[in-house]
């Protein structure tokens, strides 16, 4: 027998108390939606998990109204210290129910349980703990004394890190004093609905967080709702562009975290074994469904062959299969549509003349799967070197000098992240300074921390999430209003004249928008 064919070690699903039907979480309770419900499936075997309510525009109105009510009556009147208490409580409950959340996430998303267990869920708790600490310290957020919340935040999140993206959105919004309507992705609503149960358990006042499920039209109705003050979106650049267009001139504050085509630069003096690990982690972590994935490997020409050789050896040890098995390294592709996109772009890669190599994995009969793949002989003009594939596909390019590496790394419409591998500190600092990317990792990749701001240049979006900067995205300066928000909630938009914002406030918004762009 082969030791490496480890006996199955599946995480038990029994910890997850699945309901057959999940409603919309509005005003503190689950309720039916008025759209046609849909079924969420496990991408690993296409089996149905649960029926999910679908929010139509009336449901969106109800949710936004609930959030507005909670903002006016409760949340904006509460002291920062008390808001912090709720956030700490949520963080602890996330830790207590971490196994359940990890199972829900892996089941619905297809990512390996070891990633949801060791990365996603611990980071979710960390995010709530971090922003819980900020709730009573907003004077130090960099916006002057007594900054004010924005109001109701509409948040639309993607399917690649369903629960983590929820935490990135909800934690800073609540800490800053906003209320939230959040829409998880159509294919991955489950963990957000389990999280809604946690909110009930935490006794979070009704309406402070509302979670509505549905497809793109639900999201569109939400971000375009007239009573929304802030829009935060993570997802594709195409949708981000549409949101930017439709919210322009409405006075809504907006944060967009979009696509990427990150360069992972390996110099010939890199710590080789760790660089190989970093390349693997950069592109094959979470099946490559990572906006900041290191999908373009830029390797110094003199070590190209060795790197590729070692990379292939390492990829051959990756274990693809049941996402709930604790030894699985590569899980399922999240949806059929995404699998088709990955396949199509890979075929384009071959047609354009790049050399394809895929790890020899046994592909399960059911579900959506794609073997870890690397393309060599990729030129900067190839589509696989320019477009975001959002899958376990690595494009390898070479460079000769640091200057060429920097030029090639920056030669993309995106600018979310980048990686540098070198044993030489001065080179790392010098190159990092010249990379146009929101996050630059040195001798590591795909590491996240709630204290570190995250966001992109160019078509990768604007605004930052995480850290003090992420908090600022949900605040406005207190100078434009004599009274701090905690004692003077703004009147509901619904009863306001159509100009919506007071002139002074509008000017502040315009200025902050100008500064952001």
């Amino acid at each position, binding site marked *: *027998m082969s*030791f490496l*064919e*480890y*006996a*199955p*070690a599946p995480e038990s699903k029994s910890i997850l108390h699945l309901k057959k039907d999940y409603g919309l979480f509005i005003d503190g309770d689950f309720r039916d939606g008025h759209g046609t419900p849909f079924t969420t499936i496990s991408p690993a075997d296409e089996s149905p998990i649960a029926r999910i309510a679908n929010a139509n525009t009336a449901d969106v109105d109800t949710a936004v109204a609930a959030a507005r009510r909670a903002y006016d009556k409760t949340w904006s009147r509460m002291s920062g210290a008390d808001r912090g208490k709720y956030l700490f409580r949520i963080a602890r409950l996330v830790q207590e129910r971490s196994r359940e959340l990890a199972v829900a996430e892996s089941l619905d998303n297809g990512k390996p349980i070891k990633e949801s267990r060791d990365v996603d869920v611990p980071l979710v708790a960390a995010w709530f703990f971090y922003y819980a600490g900020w709730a009573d310290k907003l004077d130090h957020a960099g916006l002057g004394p007594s900054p004010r919340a924005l109001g109701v935040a509409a948040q639309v999140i993607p399917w690649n890190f369903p629960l983590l993206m929820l935490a990135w959105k909800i934690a800073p919004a609540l800490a800053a004093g906003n209320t939230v309507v959040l829409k998880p992705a159509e294919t991955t609503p489950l963990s957000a609905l389990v999280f809604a149960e946690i909110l009930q358990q935490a006794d979070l006042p009704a309406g402070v967080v509302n979670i509505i499920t549905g497809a793109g039209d639900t999201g569109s109705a939400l971000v375009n709702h007239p009573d929304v003050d802030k829009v935060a979106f993570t997802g594709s650049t195409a949708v981000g562009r549409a949101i930017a267009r439709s919210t322009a001139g409405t006075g809504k504050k907006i944060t967009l975290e979009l696509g990427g085509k990150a360069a992972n630069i390996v110099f010939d*003096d890199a710590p080789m074994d*760790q660089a190989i690990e970093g390349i693997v982690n950069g592109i094959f972590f979470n099946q490559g469904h990572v906006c900041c994935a290191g999908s373009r490997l830029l390797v110094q020409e003199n070590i190209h062959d060795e790197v590729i050789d070692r990379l292939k050896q390492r990829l051959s040890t990756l274990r693809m299969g049941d996402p709930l098995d604790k030894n699985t390294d590569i899980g399922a592709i999240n949806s059929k549509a995404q699998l088709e996109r990955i396949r199509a772009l890979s075929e384009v890669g071959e047609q354009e003349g790049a050399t394809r190599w895929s790890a020899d994995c046994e592909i399960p009969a059911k579900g959506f799967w794609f073997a870890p793949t690397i393309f060599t002989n990729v030129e900067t003009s190839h589509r696989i070197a320019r477009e975001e594939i959002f899958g376990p596909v690595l494009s390898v390019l070479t460079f000769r000098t640091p200057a060429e590496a920097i030029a090639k790394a920056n030669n993309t419409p995106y600018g979310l992240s980048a990686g540098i591998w070198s044993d030489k500190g001065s080179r790392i600092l010098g190159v990092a300074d010249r990379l146009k990317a929101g996050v630059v990792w040195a001798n590591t990749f795909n590491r996240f921390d709630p204290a570190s701001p995250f966001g992109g240049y160019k078509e990768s979006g604007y605004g930052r999430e995480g850290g003090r900067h992420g908090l600022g995205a949900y605040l406005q300066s207190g100078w434009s209003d004599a009274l701090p928000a905690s004692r003077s909630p703004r009147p509901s938009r619904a009863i306001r004249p159509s100009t919506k914002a007071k002139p002074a406030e509008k000017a502040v918004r315009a200025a902050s928008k100008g500064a952001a762009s």
Partner: protein
Amino acid sequence: MTIEQSVALAPAARAIQLIGTDLTEKSLKLHLDGLSGVDAVGLEARAAGLATRSIKTTSKAWALDTIIRLIDLTTLEGADTPGKVQSLVAKAMNPDPSDPTTPRVAAVCVYGDMVADAVAALGSAHAAGGPTGINVAAVATAFPSGRASLAVKLADTRDAVAAGADEIDMVIDRGAFLSGRYGVVFEQIVAVKEACRRDDGSMAHLKVILETGELNTYDNVRKASWLAILAGADFIKTSTGKVQPAATLPVTLLMLQVVNDWNRLTGEKIGVKPAGGIRSSKDAIRYLVTVAETVGEEWLHPHLFRFGASSLLNDVLLQRQKLKTGHYSGPDYVTID
């Protein structure tokens, strides 16, 4: 400084092949300094990742038996006596009297002056380097400090080989290594390797102990691993067990990576032996996973991987009994040696 006599010595053939016939302190240093660096954070993260593998049921049963087969059952005390060695050997031959299917360990590891007692106690079970039975390994070269003249170290080695040791566990001169005198370290390993030669021309297996706890940095461990392999080591071994930290998973992973690099370069297979501090089955299984996923399963054989351990065996036996019977017994249901 030219390493003159080493050019003529067969064990240095590897170095000559790789670096050239004009083997000098300088060429050796250039080679070692040219090795890729080690990023400590990344290495430790990889080791931690490997440690999360979940080894259950049939895989666990296989792993537990394999661990026993890979153990160098060790006693290295100033208080060692022929009686203690006899007891150790008895345990090595029959680890679990309640279960005759229990495999035997790979070797017993003792001080040089105890080799004859170990050989006598083993009797017909002495493998003497053969495929079945149990080997006798001796620590040598002024173990554990290595602070003695080369002449003394060589005499120590020859004594043990003459007494019937099948394997020699030598220590490198860490002082020479840390002061940058790689040539001295190299020469001593070459000379000890030569001292492993028996009258009939065959050679005792040489394990080279790097004492990674004293080398302190991962970069040093990588250099010392290369140095030992170039000088003719059959095995590279982490520690004496007398210095803390002894074997750690990241250090062992790093040494396995060097062994993997050497195999890619030459096709030759070098063994690895973590020693000291591995006390639980859970820990030992993590090492098996690390070996299998770094150099491959073929390394999970006594001629390419060993555990230097004393208390590990009894924990493995307890786990083995648990797997068979479904319940834990207790420390009184395994024998002390």
